[in-house]
């Protein structure tokens, strides 16, 4: 299945604004992020804390909806989904 990754701010600077991943059906968010980390140590360092869990300040959205709690790792992605990753917002 194809999942689009949108990255903003310093995540965009590391992996570019838009990536397309070809993942196995049923891959969860964590799987997609690990896939991206495999290609970029900088991305891994920005996304994960020292314990290997997604850093608390990282914001994740699937199709424009924020995901929180356990969903941040385990929510399953579907073909055509847009997964967005970015740091805390600072508009206004």
């Amino acid at each position, binding site marked *: 299945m194809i999942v689009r990754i949108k990255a903003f*701010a310093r995540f965009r600077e590391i992996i570019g604004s838009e990536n397309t991943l070809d993942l196995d059906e049923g891959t969860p968010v964590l799987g997609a992020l690990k896939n991206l980390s495999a290609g970029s140590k900088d991305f891994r360092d920005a996304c994960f804390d020292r314990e290997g869990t997604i850093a608390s300040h990282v*914001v994740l959205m699937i199709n424009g909806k924020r995901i929180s709690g356990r969903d941040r790792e385990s929510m399953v992605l579907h073909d055509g989904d847009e997964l967005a990753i970015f740091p*805390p*917002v600072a508009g*206004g």
Partner: protein
Amino acid sequence: MIRLQQDDFNVTTLVEAAKSRETGAIVTFIGIVRDDGIECMELEAYHEVAERELAVIRDEAMKEFPLHSVDIIHRTGPLRVGDNIVLIVVSAGHRKEAFLGCEYIIDRLKQTVPIWKKEYLKDSSRWVGGEERHGHS
């Protein structure tokens, strides 16, 4: 009107457009690039989601307070010290709700709308953290 745009906005034009015969009070908030030792900044947004979140905030504000209209224009792209960043125009029958509504909107905007600022200093650059950190205003 809810809009993300590169161009500047004209406050007077939006204030005039916000008026109806029942309008007694209009409160506006304008966020401006402040000189925190920076040369300029660049604003980036998750466009579709940011505009949708702004519309959600407008709807929340109009549900919470008896407002007549809410307009929010947020700029993106490169901005210099003194440039406008965001304009919020709230019209109401009376001033109390116009103030409450306008402040509610900018508070929420800073919490939830996916927009980021990169500040360029003389020899370096930095991403601005979220509210309660180095927020500009």
